[in-house]
């Protein structure tokens, strides 16, 4: 008898286990406790807007090198919002491929964020090492020309363009690498403007306007001169230098619309 009871209990447990997760009814929230945040990425070169494919060099570095940009793409991942009290919201499955040539890729619409007053925004430029080692991925991470197959891993940032100062007339900066000593994954928390918070409410969708300055890839800890630094094509010291440059200041939060 005792055994039968036990088995009955087990059978009951099995029934509860066999119901699919999808089928379980989700409680309908009576009060909306989440909101949205839009991150708008505004691509610039110093004080000028980024215009791709100019016929002649339309930008100048502080060192005096002239250049134009043909391709600018990068990954933003693992977005995290932190409240004043230190509690955080970590966006699940947080991967975005931003392409300067694709307008819709420059708006990151974050949904289902718990309401609250957020005081900092953190994200990774590139893709975490786990996703570099887990085989083929979907969505923004589906293998494309932002993926190295001969030395597996994502290209975190791609900047290509032309410069009369480059020996070949062109430069190709492909930054990636997730293993020591050439780990180019960088996580940044660009400061919010003074006295500004991201106020997430059920009926407010704040817009965070971020300036993304291409010039910061070429300046910072390492001054890039196209004559002697025309490229990076693989995980290595050059990629790490470029990553250190762009981590130091490519992203700047310009202003936040409360909406």
């Amino acid at each position: 008898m005792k055994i039968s009871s036990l088995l009955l209990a087990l059978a009951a447990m099995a029934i509860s286990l066999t119901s699919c997760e999808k089928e379980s009814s989700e409680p309908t929230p009576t009060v909306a406790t989440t909101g949205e945040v839009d991150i708008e990425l505004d691509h610039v070169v110093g004080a000028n807007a980024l215009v791709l494919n100019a016929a002649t060099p339309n930008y100048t570095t502080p060192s005096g090198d002239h250049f134009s940009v043909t391709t600018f793409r990068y990954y933003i991942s693992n977005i995290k919002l932190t409240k004043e009290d230190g509690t955080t919201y970590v966006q699940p499955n947080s991967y975005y491929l931003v392409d300067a040539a694709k307008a819709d890729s420059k708006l990151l619409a974050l949904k289902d964020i718990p309401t609250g007053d957020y005081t900092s925004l953190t994200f990774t430029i590139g893709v975490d090492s786990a996703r570099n080692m887990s085989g083929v991925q979907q969505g923004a991470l589906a293998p494309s020309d932002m993926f190295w197959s001969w030395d597996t891993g994502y290209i975190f940032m791609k900047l290509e363009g032309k410069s009369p100062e480059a020996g070949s007339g062109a430069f190709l900066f492909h930054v990636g690498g997730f293993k020591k000593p050439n780990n180019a994954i960088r996580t940044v928390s660009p400061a919010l403007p003074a006295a500004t918070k991201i106020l997430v409410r059920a009926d407010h969708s704040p817009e965070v306007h971020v300036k993304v300055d291409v010039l910061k890839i070429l300046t910072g800890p390492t001054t890039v001169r196209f004559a002697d630094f025309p490229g990076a094509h693989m995980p290595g010291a050059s990629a790490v230098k470029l990553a250190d440059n762009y981590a130091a200041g490519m992203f700047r939060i310009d202003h936040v619309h409360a909406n």
Partner: protein
Amino acid sequence: MKRTQTVLLAAGLAALLAAGCQPDAAVVPLETVPGSGLPTNFPAPVYGLDQNPPTKVGFELGRKLFYDPRLSRDGSTSCGSCHQQFAAFTHAGHPVSHGIDGLLGTRNSPALQNLRWQRDFLWDGGSNHIETMPAAPITSPVEMGETLENVVRKLNADPEYQRHFEQVFGSKPIDSYQLLKALAQFTAALTSANSRYDHYVRHESGGTLSAAELRGLTLLTQKCTPCHSTELFTDNSFRNNGLDATFAADSGRAHITQRPTDRGKFKVPSLRNVARTAPYMHDGRFQTLEQVLDHYAHGVVASPTLDPLLKPATGPLGLALSSQQKGDLIAFLNTLTDEQFLTDKRLSERP
């Protein structure tokens, strides 16, 4: 009575558990898909069966892609062009292979077998996953010269592929994720575990080794391990086996790690089906197994990264091998030929 009840309850319980959250697609019995069982003498796989569960339609789609030259830029070269089944999916007789436009590659086409057990791919280990591996030859300018984007475009323009992919993945359009997942259905199915040696080690019928072959097996464990160890006959390490004094043409593992200590190191290949995978070494320089053993016996060249196992405390570099020993080793190596794998119609271009 009580006993019957208990049994019935237990059976009901099992049925309930089994009926859980199965997808609607028919679950194909494992044995109908090649390579969907795990050989009992093998270690645990790196790429578990649960990671991309083998299905018949998925396997057939992967096979179709593997043999489809449209995966190359000019429609001339398929995966199967340089990976021929009868040669354990190497390129028979080719030190290096020719891709699109007759361009030559730089390294010998490696065997595709037991990839489910492999952590790194390519001679330098640059590829870290069975699923993303095919993107390397597809996009190599001297191999298939394509982009994933363009392959996906071609597949989406083909109604037959559209149907087949939708049958497997239940969604459309076809994307690079589906392409590479489907290819892995085929490449992970290339299990070679039915050589005479396997029958011997699993105590199965037909598993008899001759005296010379047994002597060769003993010699192998003495002379060729740990490099060619385990039932996969490789420890999956990268080693410099003394082919050259300098490595200007191909730095091997150092190409990936950029460490000078890795110069001249290449992936240790499996010895399974080795009698059918000539020519040998990363550049295909040796035509026969005799030449390979002669290299180890008296051809090893010194260099800063030469493997310590080839530097005995006394005597010349390499491995001390008499001609009798070489003969015994080759006799054993021939027992690693898996005819069933090499001739399995299900793995062939025209099944």
